[in-house]
């Protein structure tokens, strides 16, 4: 479409690697500096990455129909966002096939075509740096003498395409002083369930040891755990300082529980203080994650991304950013998406709250109203 693109030799591995590396390095350096909110540098890095992706990601370029040149975009807020759904239809990546060492699929029912977010060595390094730099201070993984991590997901070899499992494995590898275990298994349909006996035994043992633990899992896996405890008539008292990280929705894999109720039930059944339960918002299409609290601190429960990933809440009607307290669709500009597309239009409705947002949930999940949906 552009002269620049047409003049690119069809990506030899070396050329691609060498052109991605400067962006990956600059962004990794930005993350390492833990910037408070360096708007000028963020803007510069974002625009440079956008220009790179526009040129090297042909599928993304086809979505930017109104642009002839990346230079037409002058501010990071104006970078064209790729719909999250585009990861299902298109290969949104700057990586030639030989460089794609990992791919993250969206969760969801097996009938749907999953999203495919390709990664290579450099983009994975940025992904891992991004997640560690933000989960660390929110879960306070190096404080309070945390000794054990319990993951309610299957291990990486059973879920090689899960970005969540990759994240947990990255956390495990970065905290070698902590014992860690994956307690998830695959059911007959390939869905995630729990090795309940093993998990209960591990948590019981941890409770007896008296050293705080961190438990990570999806909302539906936590519901399964709560249901199992209820059936046994059991409650646990995990040691003081223990925390929980809860993420994701239900996707029909368990009954749905409103988040405050889930947190109350987790607090009651596992003996974890409510302020030590942290919610994460993440998706396979994004390199960065948002958290709604710092473990152990009273929080307003506003989700916040790190300074290298900016969230915009935009009016679906006009595409303009909503004002404070307004509702709209969440749009992300995430520098950690070095090898795909940094600007992503999510399908989630959110309320703009200060420097963060409150999540309302998936907009597309709603039925169209049709004839009769308001009877009830």
């Amino acid at each position, binding site marked *: 479409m552009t002269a620049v693109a047409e003049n690119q030799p069809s990506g030899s591995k070396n050329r691609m690697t060498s052109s991605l590396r400067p962006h990956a390095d600059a962004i990794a350096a930005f993350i390492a500096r833990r910037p408070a909110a360096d708007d000028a540098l963020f803007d510069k890095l974002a625009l440079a990455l956008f220009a790179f992706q526009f040129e090297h990601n042909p*599928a993304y370029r*086809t*979505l930017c*129909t109104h642009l002839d040149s990346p230079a037409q975009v002058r501010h990071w807020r104006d970078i064209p966002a790729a*719909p999250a*759904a*585009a990861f299902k*239809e*298109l290969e949104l990546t700057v990586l030639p096939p030989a460089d794609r060492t990992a791919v993250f699929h969206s969760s969801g029912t097996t009938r749907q075509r999953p999203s495919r977010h390709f990664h290579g060595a450099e983009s994975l390094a940025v992904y891992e740096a991004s997640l560690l730099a933000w989960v660390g201070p929110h879960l306070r993984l190096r404080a309070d003498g945390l000794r054990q991590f319990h993951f309610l997901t299957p291990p990486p070899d059973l879920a090689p395409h899960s970005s969540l499992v990759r994240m947990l494995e990255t956390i495990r590898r970065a905290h070698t002083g902590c014992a860690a275990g994956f307690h998830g298994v695959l059911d007959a349909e390939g869905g995630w369930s729990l090795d309940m006996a093993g998990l209960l035994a591990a948590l019981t043992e941890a409770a007896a040891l008296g050293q705080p633990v961190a438990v990570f899992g999806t909302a539906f896996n936590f519901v399964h755990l709560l249901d199992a405890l209820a059936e046994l008539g059991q409650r646990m008292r995990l040691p003081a300082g223990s925390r929980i990280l809860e993420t994701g929705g239900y996707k029909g894999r368990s009954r749905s529980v409103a988040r405050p109720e889930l947190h109350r039930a987790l607090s009651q059944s596992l003996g974890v203080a409510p302020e030590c339960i942290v919610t994460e918002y993440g998706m396979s299409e994004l390199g960065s994650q948002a958290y709604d609290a710092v473990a152990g601190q009273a929080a307003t429960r506003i989700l916040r991304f790190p300074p290298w990933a900016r969230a915009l809440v935009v*009016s*679906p*009607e*006009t*595409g303009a950013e909503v004002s404070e307290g307004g*509702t*709209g*669709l969440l749009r992300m500009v995430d520098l950690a998406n070095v090898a795909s597309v940094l600007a992503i*239009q999510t*399908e989630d*409705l959110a309320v703009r709250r200060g420097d963060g947002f409150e999540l309302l949930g998936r*907009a*597309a999940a*709603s039925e*169209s*109203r*049709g*004839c*009769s*949906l*308001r*009877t*009830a």
Partner: protein
Amino acid sequence: MNLPDCFLADLPPEATLTPSILTEACRALRRNREQHLAVRSTSQIVRVLSEVARDWLREEFQFRRLALEQGPALCGFPQATLAAGLDAFFGQLTPEGFHALLEQELGGTSNLDAFGGLAHGRGLARGPELIVHVTAGNIPVPALHSLVLGLLARSAQFVKCAQGTSFLPRLFAHSLREADPRLAGCLELAEFPGGTRALEEVLFAEADCVTATGRDETLADIRDRLPVKTRFIGHGHRVSFGYVSRDALPAGGAAACLARAADDVVAWNQQGCLSPHLFYVETGGAVAPEQFAALLGEELERREGAAPRGEVTVHESAVISLKRDFYRVRMAAACATRLWHSEGSTAWTVVFEGDPRFQASCLNRFVYVKPVADVAEALRAADAVRGQVSTVGLAAGGTTARDLATALAVWGVTRVCPLGRMQRPPLTWRHDGRPSLGDLVTWTDWEI
């Protein structure tokens, strides 16, 4: 809104309905019917209804003014949409329209008054003493239509409106009350959430006949809770589409057809079961299906200037925005897809898709155009919704229209109408292909 407290739906929101209030209301309805409605003749009822309908067509009529002033805020439709919908509905309620209905449904205009001559002997029709209507309320006119049929049947009626949907039914009931207070004494309206079982049980126990529109699960739930003797008339979720034959698109002569297609998209902002989700357009005509889609976009843009869609909820807007994104991606993926839409708003959207499979729209002036070689291909493509299609708006030349209508009928479509009139069913419309007034009445046959 300054309406006197005549109906339960007029009470302030803090007023709590109780089972005993509803029981008493149903008994009062029956008493009033006995005294003031059962004794009326069909021609008297027709006269009152026709006069009230004529009033509703007058711009200065106070209830119409109220509907148009407050309707946008209270029912979520802009003034122009409401005005067009009210005109279409009340324009049907004429003595001639009623006579046609009575002839079609009961074989004569006075068979509710006295034994009338039928093909074999004589017959006298009676309506149920008390009908309870459970209305969906996504658009307001079906509730009004039900009330009109019930009055013709001389039935007392209790309308249970879905939450937030009683505004226009109330205005209609008040307009009847102004014209004929005793008649209106045989009507009651209330608004409470579906599934309020204690209240519903009272209504279901009191009713002789229950009509309901809603999801299949809602209908099944209601039917299971009715006494065996109680008549149940349920109308489930239906979808509709338009069909444009190649001979309806002569070279340079597509404008009228496009205007009619736009009429159907704009009417009630597609919120009713009779509104089109998509248009099947035959290939091989002077205007190709893809061009039809582009031109329909232009027509919808003009409509937005003349009769804007109005605001929708952020949720509805988000769904439209995401659907547009989805089809943009499809276009980029080189699928046979094209997209036209309003700029800076979600006011209208036309999606052309080469894949003819039936696709439900997210509504609010979002419509698909799909090419087909012939009606057989369209019906194969719509197989997933077979048995759930209410209306097909048809644009076809005189000679092909009959064949197309026959093919649609054999497949199971219950209403074929000219394109442009999908949301304007006549008074004689048979909902879901069933008799309307005819399904309400019980006959006494007198064999001579």
